[in-house]
């Protein structure tokens, strides 16, 4: 048998004997736009006038926005209500060509994958097929989207038997039956702890959901009501958009729609390339560290090199941390790309349209089985813990290019705060319903300082403009969660600089009127800041989770109202409730049941600063001081401003002297760069800090110890011990030591 024939037989056998259709790397690792098909080329020849195409585009854009409104209105998930969703139109090839103006822009780049999976595997499969009236859903992030809490729904749009496009929506639904309520389990140790795992699946035909599948899905989650409402809202929004596409076909012809979708993608990519070409060529390197896995403290390196050449950008993350096989902080490569696209869509070129072509000119390099390109065996429910730092790595690098670019679409900024500091919750609400979800407070991330002015306080999450932190009264109406302090600006919670970052806020939560209620948190940055300043500006501080347990503050305060404090530092420093237990932790809190009146406290971080603190206008320092945003210590020791603590009046001469003195001190502290490097640099990472990622050589990856390494092109996944086992071992060692001591003492006594 000839070699070719044998090869063909083997390929045929392998093709026919697939165990199951898991995530397809060919789909998942390719973020480029599908090349123009003959059908599209024909349409583009027929329908050529750019102004006419613009009219069709505007019509379809209106449809996307209309359906976005529908999902937001009809959705029951907190995420839907604050706009954690997107609705759009995909080409017949599965590329997202148009999306709603609002919502989470990460989805712009990573919703294509499930649609392409449907086209590749189900369209021609006789047991599934793709026909008019079909409804498909999906939520497993390994097949696309960000994490399993996001559910997508698409329907095909046919015209005279021709598949014209898909319409649909993706929503962060929250609860999904994972090991912890709320949909983003930080306790997940395998993908099987992460709840519902829909690969792209047909859930309805003839424009109707199949009741058996609907029931299966409802049966798989803690909130069957939410599942039902979520599916209906996405479906009817997709139907509305389908109807609008049909209107456009009726008005302009099917070629017009096909041509418009294609040209939208082509023009977008061309525009991004034109803009990139305005940047100077060169390389910028950044390093960012995640300080934990949400279960334990450690240092996870995100290594980034941005290489701009002509009209393309290579984003190189090779040398970053290995994946954690039993922690959920791993990122699927496609999710990483989605988050990186966010930088360009929101922070560099917010005027660009929302579609996947925006990211097409970028190349992303990663090591397989790294934390930013994890294998399907690694859980990813908390991928934000690595891809948000990945985002920051490029966000603090891009200004180096923009600074001297001939084209800017918005202000150059420092690092935006990047963590989802909020409470997830689960339990029985005041109406006896089992609920689990996430609070909207994550949407108040502190804005970065700008090149010419301060950052705004708690403005928006890094993944969506116009996101809402909600109204406490409406939250309390649905769940038994009471915020003693819902959002209170945090003193000194900024990245200092000539222009300071915006502040974050503190939140003090408790529970009332529930028989069972638990809190969770899922943020890093309690030991090492997660975002940074630029051009001399500071990063914000690191922020812990604080708890006051063993007390019902409502009972105590009935008699002693003055006991309550309304800031975390006051509560933790003054400890006003006698007998209570006060503690601080990193912000990775797995589901912990709370008693009524116990306090859980976290702080949303601030944005990074821009420029040298000594150049900050003293009047701005004084204003922040009077607004309660800045302590006198920071006034004096960071900004070196002298002011009256009652009136805020600045002593100009004294300030100038103080600043001159600090400049002299800086010179005294300074040393030549090579001396600094000599003192600073070590051959290996420190032994006392569990370090993950490359150190000097990006080809060699450290796995938590200076003695444990693997090559970057053959990463061995990390397995972390259970923190409880670690703690038990520590306690046993202490017990052993005590016993040993006692034995020695006994032996001594005996002797």
């Amino acid at each position, binding site marked *: 048998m000839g070699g070719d024939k044998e090869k063909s037989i083997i390929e045929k056998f392998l093709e026919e004997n697939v165990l199951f259709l898991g995530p397809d790397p060919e789909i998942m690792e390719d973020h480029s736009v599908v090349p123009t098909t003959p059908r599209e080329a024909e349409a583009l020849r027929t329908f050529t006038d750019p*102004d006419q*195409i*613009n*009219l069709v585009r*505007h019509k379809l854009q*209106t449809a996307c926005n*209309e359906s976005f409104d*529908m999902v937001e*209105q*009809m959705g*029951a998930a907190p995420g*839907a209500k604050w706009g954690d969703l997107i609705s759009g139109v995909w080409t017949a090839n599965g590329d997202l060509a148009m999306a709603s*103006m609002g919502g989470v822009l990460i989805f712009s780049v990573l919703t294509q994958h499930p649609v392409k999976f449907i086209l590749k595997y189900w369209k021609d499969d006789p047991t599934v097929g793709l026909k008019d009236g079909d409804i498909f859903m999906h939520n497993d992030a390994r097949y696309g989207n960000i994490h399993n809490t996001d559910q997508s729904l698409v329907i095909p749009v046919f015209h005279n038997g021709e598949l014209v496009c898909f319409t649909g929506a993706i929503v962060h639904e929250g609860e999904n039956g994972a090991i912890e309520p709320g949909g983003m389990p930080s306790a997940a140790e395998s993908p099987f702890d992460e709840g519902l795992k829909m690969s792209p699946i047909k859930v309805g035909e003839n424009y109707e959901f199949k009741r058996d599948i609907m029931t299966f899905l409802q049966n798989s989650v803690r909130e069957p*009501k*939410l599942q*039902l409402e979520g599916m209906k*809202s996405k479906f*009817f929004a997709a*139907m*509305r958009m389908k109807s609008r596409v049909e209107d456009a076909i009726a008005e302009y012809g099917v070629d017009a729609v096909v041509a418009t979708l294609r040209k939208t993608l082509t*023009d977008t990519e061309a*525009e991004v390339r*034109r803009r990139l070409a305005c940047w100077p060529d060169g390389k910028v390197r950044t390093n960012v560290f995640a300080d934990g896995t949400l279960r334990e403290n450690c240092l996870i390196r995100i290594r980034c090199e941005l290489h701009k050449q002509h009209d393309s950008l290579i984003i190189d993350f090779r040398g970053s941390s290995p994946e954690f096989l039993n922690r959920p902080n791993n990122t699927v490569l496609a999710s990483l790309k989605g988050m990186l696209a966010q930088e360009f869509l929101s*922070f560099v070129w*917010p*005027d*660009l349209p929302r579609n996947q072509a925006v990211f097409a000119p970028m190349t992303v390099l990663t090591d397989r089985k790294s934390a930013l390109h994890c294998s399907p065996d690694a859980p990813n429910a908390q991928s934000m813990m690595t891809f948000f730092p990945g985002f920051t790595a490029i966000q603090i690098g891009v200004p180096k290019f923009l600074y001297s670019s001939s084209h800017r*679409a*918005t*202000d150059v900024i420092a690092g935006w705060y990047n963590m989802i500091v909020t409470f997830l919750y689960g339990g029985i609400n*005041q*109406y*006896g*319903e089992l609920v689990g979800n996430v609070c909207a407070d994550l949407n108040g991330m502190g804005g*970065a300082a700008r090149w010419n002015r301060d950052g*705004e306080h*708690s*403005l*928006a999450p890094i993944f969506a*403009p116009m996101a*809402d932190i909600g*109204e*406490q*009264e*409406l939250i*309390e*109406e649905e769940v038994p969660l*009471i915020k003693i*302090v*819902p*959002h*209170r600006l945090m003193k000194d919670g900024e990245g200092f600089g000539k222009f300071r970052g915006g502040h974050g*806020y503190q939140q003090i939560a408790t529970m*009332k009127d529930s028989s069972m209620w638990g809190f969770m948190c899922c943020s890093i940055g309690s030991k090492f800041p997660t975002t940074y300043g630029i051009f001399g500006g500071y990063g914000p501080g690191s922020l812990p989770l604080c708890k006051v347990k063993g007390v019902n503050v409502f009972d105590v*305060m009935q008699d002693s*109202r003055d006991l*309550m404090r*309304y800031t975390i530092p006051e509560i933790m420093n003054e400890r006003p409730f006698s007998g209570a237990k006060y503690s601080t932790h990193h912000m990775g809190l797995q589901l912990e049941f709370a008693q009524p009146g116990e306090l859980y406290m976290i702080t949303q971080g601030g944005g990074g600063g821009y420029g040298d603190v000594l150049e900050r206008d003293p009047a701005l320092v004084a204003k922040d001081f*009077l*607004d309660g945003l800045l302590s006198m210590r920071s006034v004096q020791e960071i900004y070196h401003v002298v002011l009256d603590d009652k009136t805020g009046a600045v002593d100009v001469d004294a300030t100038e002297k103080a600043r001159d003195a600090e400049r002299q001190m800086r010179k005294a502290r300074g040393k030549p760069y090579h001396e600094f490097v000599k003192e600073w640099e070590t051959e290996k990472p420190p032994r006392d800090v569990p370090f993950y990622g490359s150190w000097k050589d990006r080809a060699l990856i450290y796995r938590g110890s200076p003695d444990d390494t693997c090559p970057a092109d053959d990463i061995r996944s990390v397995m972390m011990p259970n923190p409880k086992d670690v703690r038990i071992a520590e306690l046993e060692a202490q017990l052993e030591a005590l016993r040993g001591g006692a034995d020695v003492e006994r032996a001594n006594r005996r002797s």
Partner: protein
Amino acid sequence: MRRVSVDIGGTFTDCFLAYDSRYVEAKALTTHHNLAAGFMEALGKACEELGESVQTVLANVDAVRYGTTLGTNSLIQRNGPRVGLLTTAGFESSVPLMRARGYGDGLSDAEQTDLPGADRPVPLVPIPMIVGIRERMDYKGVSALAVDDEDVRSQVRRLVDQGAQAFVVALTNAVVNPAHEIEVERIILSEYPTHVLGAIPIVLSHRVAGRKAEYSRTMSAVLDAYLHDQMYHGMSTLEIVLRQNGYKRPMLLVHNTSGMAQLNSTHALQTIHSGPVAGLEASNYLSAQFKEPNIIATDMGGTSFDIGLVTADGVKFYDFNPVIDRWLVSTPMTYLHTLGAGGGSIARYDRLWDAVEVGPASAGSDPGPACYGRGGKLPTTTDANLVLGYLDEQNYAGGTIKINKRRAERAIDEHICKPAGLSLIDGAKAIKRKVDANMANAIFKEVAVKGYNPKNFVILSYGGGGPIHACGYASRLGINRVLIPPFSSVFSALGAGNMDGLHIHEKSLYLMLYDATRRTMLEDFTVFNETVAELEQRGREDLARQDVKPEQIKIRVELDMRYGNQLAQIGVTSPLSRLASMQDVITLLDRFSVNYAQRFGEGSQAPEAGVRINVIRVVSYVEHERLDLRQSTQRTDEKPKPTSQRQCWFPEISEALMTDVYDYQAVREGMTVAGPALIETPRTTYLVEPGWTLTMGLSGSAWLVKA
């Protein structure tokens, strides 16, 4: 009927005077320094046309009705009092943070998506003027922490020391149980009683807004406090001027709820945007008079394009959380969508799409379109209209504004034609086409998102720019009939003259009609019935204060209902004002189901997830005598004679067409003009596009109909 109605806009003060069977319209420039001056000038012109003195008219009219932008101006100029805010301790940052998303409230889509460039507005209440007081009410209205008298006193003193000129008290869950807000008011009054000179006005949030949501309710109260003095003094000045001229009755203020009330029954917040709402109310009435049940009301001015809906099913569309200036508030305002599209909208070439874009940036009236010659260099919609031949360079706006065609050509050539590679005419056509498409898309979304088919509607076009573009955007929507209403240039003032006395009171509550978890229906109707009764009583008191007799008062009960935990709260007009049986509950569920399906599609309803009432709203009103908009003159079948001809270009026709130009006075009731044609009035131009025909109707109205 004898009635004066005045609408004060940013540029013009419009007056509509109904004096027995005679209706007169007049305009004057708005006098921002003293609104009474413009008011009296407009009224003077109307009286002059009537042949009566102002004093005679004012002494004999039943009512003076007044819509004003005074409040909006005060917000823009930031000249309100220094407001001190007392809020629940822990909630001090709620107002400064504006729910995070508030940075973008009141801005365009493009501005909202630009996060690095985002700036919150200068605050109405700076951080040092916000204090927290120790108290807490839970979601059910149970006090979790009582008000601390000493704490309140010390915080109030702190605010006074910092110069507070007005207090706002906004405490958590006060709409469910206002006891703590009332207690704080009592304490403040004990410190600063009303009869002393140092008295400081106090606004309690639950009295301004009845809905849960602490930020938007607090902002409602803040705006109320901020605008109160300005509004009160402005109104009082006007009232004095009216009294000096012989008017003896109370002045009526137009509300943004589509009703009106006396000064003593009006919150400042209720007057914002009252002009456009009055226009929509006029559309509502016109719908009945002209027997056109489905109307899309469009008002195109210099910078904006307002869209409102009148539907055959009588559904009232409200915006419960409107944005006023840059502030999200909680007040039921008649819903209007405003698009940044007007004569001043700036056109540009978009490199990305190789196409022409228009708006939302606007040249406004200063510097205005390039053709105005006031420094504007960028091409606008008006410039395109001039180049295409629709406007008369020698007789624009009745000759009151000089325009220069050469400037318009230069701007379009420089900014559109050169980069796009288009001829001058093609560039101007592209602008016209895009403006029409923008307006059509906005209308489509507004109508479709509410579940209606635009093709079943007639377009009502008023405002200075509307009648030039009406054929264009109607064509794109597939709508074949456009009505230009009587008195179209003072249509909002006409609307003010046609409103009822009306008050809306609402209250948040959590009332499950169907509990999906327990699978139970509402059986105890006490809360529903008592809430409606309480709100009815408040409405009756408002109207009684204005001398309305109890038997004249009518009541409408509206419910905001929702499935499960959805965000969507659909307003349902309840056929019942009291619940007495399970059948009544089913009736409400059915009514809600119908409304929901209309908006989101049949089958989208989700009663399986539970159904609840979130807000009960009671509309208390007294009907006033209405205008007759069907007054007929002598109909004629004669052909009107054009005054001139000029070449005009149209987007879908390659060559210029010689177009007849008519003076509006020559086109009388019953006359028909086939397109292409232009009908010029002193205030606007009607463009009859090819394929369309204009027929003059009753009371100076005009129909544009596409063959």
